[in-house]
């Protein structure tokens, strides 16, 4: 071997490769057969995911394209570099896709048009349709999706809810395992009489939704958090934080824990944003849950906190008319010179370290009021390993 051309052993190559984004890894697969095999190994895919999930997360964005009825997908990294996600023709053709969970770089999407559930890895562009039929979707339902390292399996949870005048609440729960490829009925005794909200968050092998007493949703009073243990397929109910008197709340993930973003009314038209983080107790049975109030924003006008991205809370203003929208501290928001016909409302970032608000300028995303935002870590995780039907 020539002295100026050192041969790098596999462990070094792998240590370099695990630091690359998926796009570069797909390119690296084409270098030689040996590298292709290294990158395709499940152990490497897991190692890469582990490394990526300890870096700053990206934001997955979806916004309506003005040119057509389709949506555009984008990825924004922590350096504010935006990347257009090449979606598949199937994804583009489905206009009413709703994101109902994401885990390890895989997205679980509900399609009203197909009356089915899609699993999609935007980074590898792999897409699969879950085997579920139209008939099963009579009545209301909400979906959750997540991974449990304990059983090394991804599961889709479908909670069927009846909203009629009588017998309201959850009446059936089915769980699909990607590993066994089977649907299974699951016990839900403690969910009787409860309705479950659409928004869901997956963290630490559990899927979470808001639960509320049937009929009480109109006044916005969620009464507890519904938790589903993916490995044991058991539901539990988590009480809301003490002294909880917020006007609205959102589930999110903060530092790998379940978190809740709340808006609290202070006085007149002054509000503040609170962040509660869950300290998890002993486990599925007899666990003790406790919420810690981690952050408390300065006083501001009404803002809806959407999600946490790194150390910032992404907020959406309530008002469409920007002239009505001011802060106590009066930060100067630069306005872009271009006049837009759309009543575009900017998003705001609240920094948890500096306690400051600033505008969140996402370029080329059209009207921010219809943008979907999701904190996201891309991965090489393959759906096909789990034998779900190809559409």
């Amino acid at each position: 071997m020539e002295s100026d051309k050192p041969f790098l052993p596999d462990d070094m190559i792998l240590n370099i490769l695990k630091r690359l984004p998926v796009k570069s890894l797909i390119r690296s697969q084409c270098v030689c057969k040996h590298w292709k095999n290294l990158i395709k190994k499940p152990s490497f895919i897991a190692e890469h995911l582990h490394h990526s999930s300890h870096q700053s997360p990206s934001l997955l964005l979806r916004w309506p394209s003005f040119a057509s009825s389709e949506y555009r997908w984008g990825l924004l990294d922590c350096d504010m570099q935006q990347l257009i996600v090449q979606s598949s023709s199937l994804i583009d053709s489905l206009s009413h896709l709703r994101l109902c969970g994401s885990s390890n770089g895989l997205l679980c999407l509900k399609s009203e048009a197909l009356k089915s559930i899609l699993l999609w890895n935007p980074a590898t562009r792999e897409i699969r349709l879950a085997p579920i039929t139209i008939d099963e979707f009579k009545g209301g339902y909400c979906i959750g999706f997540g991974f449990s390292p304990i059983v090394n399996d991804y599961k889709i949870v479908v909670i069927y809810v009846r909203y009629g005048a009588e017998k309201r609440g959850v009446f059936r729960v089915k769980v699909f395992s990607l590993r066994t490829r089977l649907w299974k009925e699951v016990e839900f005794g403690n969910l009787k009489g409860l309705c479950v909200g659409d928004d869901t968050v997956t963290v630490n092998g559990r899927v979470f939704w808001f639960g509320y007493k049937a009929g009480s949703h109109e006044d916005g009073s969620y009464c507890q958090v519904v938790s589903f243990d993916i490995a044991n397929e058991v539901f539990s109910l988590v009480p809301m934080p003490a002294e909880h008197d917020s006007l609205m709340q959102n589930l999110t993930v903060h530092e790998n824990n379940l978190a809740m973003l709340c808006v609290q009314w202070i006085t007149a038209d002054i509000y503040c944003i609170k962040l509660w983080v869950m300290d998890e107790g002993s486990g599925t049975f007899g666990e003790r849950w406790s919420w810690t109030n981690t952050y408390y924003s300065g006083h501001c006008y009404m803002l809806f906190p959407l999600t946490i991205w790194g150390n910032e809370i992404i907020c959406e203003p309530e008002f469409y008319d920007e002239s009505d929208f001011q802060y106590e501290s009066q930060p100067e928001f630069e306005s872009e010179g271009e006049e837009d016909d759309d009543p575009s409302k900017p998003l705001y970032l609240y920094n948890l370290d500096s306690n400051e608000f600033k505008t969140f300028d996402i370029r080329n995303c059209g009207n921010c009021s219809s943008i979907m935002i999701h904190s996201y870590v891309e991965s090489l995780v393959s759906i096909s390993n789990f034998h779900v039907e190809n559409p």
Partner: protein
Amino acid sequence: MSSSVEAITVLSSDGDEFKITVSAAKLSKPLNWMLEDVCFSDDCDEVPTIEVNSKTLVKVIEYCEKHAPRANSGASDSDAEELKKWDIEFMKMDVKDILFHILMAANYLHMEGLYDLACQTAADLMKGMTVSQIRKIFHIKNDFSSEEQEQLRRQHPGCSFD
């Protein structure tokens, strides 16, 4: 030799002599062992050899000397920030020239910080490279047949090969 020595002399694989301070040598377990050998053996004439070429060893010693004060005493956040900037400047080197040698040396000398830094630098370099550029810097021969190559191009239409 007494234990009050402040620097030891080592030989590179090319046979050149280098001085490294005792506190800097502590960043590497193997260097530290050599140091103890030199300090406590009666056979003072022997200069230990490090299986790293001169060009690389200069850089490794430079890294050790810079990081030694922080590694030995701990440092404030501002120092850590300054050191991070220094690392970035330090790693601005020609990859064909020395980066992979640094990687091998850091591994051989059990220097975790430098190893991580070199791996990250290599990864950052690769991010903007085409397939053929990656092959070139890693000295890898393309072993795909032309049919397989065609298939890869079809499978990954957005991927830049040349």
